[in-house]
């Protein structure tokens, strides 16, 4: 599982220590690189960006909309939380433009928990990303769940010290995002539906493309890179590793412990759960059950135990072009 994507061009970003330090109230202040700064240490390298994603593996990242939900998630064993104003199911129902959340609300969540806090920005909205980096968020999700700000360009993620996760439906999309600097990939699935079918489709597509690439010779890889519109060096690296060169989570429609274990058995490294937890009958119980299901995804006996008596799952909707909010997964390819 080495992440040997070539070092990102972050030398400039690595120079200046950030002037934040937004951790728990009693936490120590940010480090000071004395005597002329970072003589032999560097911040914001691709290694520390993809490294944090590696620390999240085998874990569950939960959408939360306030400090109270964040605490429930932390107590249930979430390895990180995603701070946002509305979960995807509500964005679908209520409509309107979905944007980055109010920084004060994100800061309350950062102060409430000790686990990493992520937050979403609109595709291409690099100023929302600058704001999140400034307030000391741990990971940014450049997300199709929010209304895109740019229909042509994604954010140049190499120019940030804070790492990015991006959604993808297939190998080409995943490698395009990695070439833009994403250090972490997730399936797009279809967020806010409680329906896992699209996440399954995207993970299957990714796996099948990687298997095909892994048996190709160099000439075939050149042609394949052209076909899937991805940089050749990343296609070649993926073929060599027989997996994506960064961590790959499932996201979009996961609602039950069985859904989570399904995505893990399909080869995902961990799981994002959005509306599935706090739109269910008993969020604390369901959250804990999904955390256990991810760890013990190959143990049907334990999966049966944790699936019992966890309250009603979110209702969920059938995925169609006419559903409320439409399909999110086609945004930002």
């Amino acid at each position, binding site marked *: *599982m*080495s*992440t*040997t994507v070539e070092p990102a061009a972050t030398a400039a970003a690595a120079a200046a*220590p*950030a002037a934040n*330090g*937004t*951790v*728990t109230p009693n*936490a*120590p202040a*940010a*480090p*000071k*690189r*004395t*005597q002329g700064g*970072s*003589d*032999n*240490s*560097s*911040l*914001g*390298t691709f*290694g*520390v960006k993809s*490294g*944090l994603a*590696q*620390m*999240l*593996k*085998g*874990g569950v990242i939960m959408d939360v909309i306030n400090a109270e939900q964040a*605490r429930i998630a*932390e*107590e249930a*064993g979430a*390895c990180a939380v995603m701070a946002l104003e509305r979960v995807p199911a509500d964005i679908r129902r209520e409509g309107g433009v979905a944007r980055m959340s109010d920084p004060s609300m994100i800061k309350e969540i*950062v102060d409430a*928990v*000790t*686990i*990493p806090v992520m937050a979403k920005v609109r595709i291409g909205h690099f100023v929302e990303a600058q704001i999140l*980096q400034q307030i*000391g*968020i*741990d*990971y940014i999700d450049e997300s199709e769940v929010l209304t895109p700000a740019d229909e042509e360009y994604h954010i140049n993620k190499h120019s940030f010290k*804070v*790492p990015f996760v991006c959604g993808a439906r297939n190998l080409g999309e995943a490698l395009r995002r990695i070439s833009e600097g994403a250090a972490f990939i997730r399936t797009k699935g279809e967020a806010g539906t409680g329906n896992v079918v699209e996440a399954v489709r995207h993970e299957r597509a990714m796996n099948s493309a990687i298997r095909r690439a892994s048996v190709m010779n160099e000439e075939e890889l050149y042609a394949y890179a052209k076909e899937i519109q991805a940089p050749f060096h990343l296609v070649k690296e993926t073929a060599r590793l027989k997996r994506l060169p960064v961590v790959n989570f499932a996201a979009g429609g996961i609602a039950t412990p069985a859904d989570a274990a399904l995505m893990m058995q399909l080869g995902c490294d961990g799981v994002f759960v959005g509306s599935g937890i706090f739109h269910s009958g008993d969020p604390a119980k369901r959250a*804990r059950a999904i*955390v*256990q299901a*991810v*760890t*013990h995804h190959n*143990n049907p006996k334990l999966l049966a135990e944790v699936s019992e008596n966890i309250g009603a799952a979110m209702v969920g909707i059938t995925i169609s072009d006419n559903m409320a909010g439409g399909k999110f997964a086609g945004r930002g390819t």
Partner: protein
Amino acid sequence: MAKITIGILALQGAFAEHQSTLQRLSIPGWKVSAVQVRNPEELASCDALVIPGGESTTIALLARLSGLLEPLREFLKRKPVWGTCAGAILVSQKVENTKKGGQELLGGMSISIARNGWGSQAESFEAQLEVPGLKNPERSFSGVFIRAPVLLSLTRSPGDPPISIIARLPPSILPQLIPDSVKSDDEEDPRRVVAIRQGLHFLTTFHPELTSDDRFHEYFVRECVVPQLAARA
């Protein structure tokens, strides 16, 4: 050739990276096999254990739900354990900056530690470490520190085994944890200490498993695991 079975606690975090590095090792006279541990039965088959990086609150909760807390505490009394980052927090005696209501620890090493001692992810860094105890010590080791914990004190109770310091950060890289009472060039400043040994156990606040350099893994097996197995044999 005698066999060593090293378990990697595989509840959450970067356990696969440790496993593949350990499996690559060649230790003269020994065959190393690395296995994932998720329950007490799997733990019982191990000669030594690595507790990986990840989220310490998540790992502690899953350990409790899997009935592993007490078996792990017992394991720490008898067999070598290496904690990296989140694992280092779990083997500490005392921890600061915990979630509300505190968190469960395994203990085993006489240190206190602060979680996430450098700040948010933007403060995560890589630094070159000079480590005399490693193979080819003239080559520095690339330490990857991710939301890393910081040692606050190394305080042995009477009867605890001695602590040896294996690696330090250069004085120019310091989290501003403790007021000026400790000079940053002080060799005894615990905040600079990033790798220690005590008795059977080994601790690093950074992530050797994220690099292709296997010298820390080799060190753990050579210095902590093999002597213990040889003594038992």
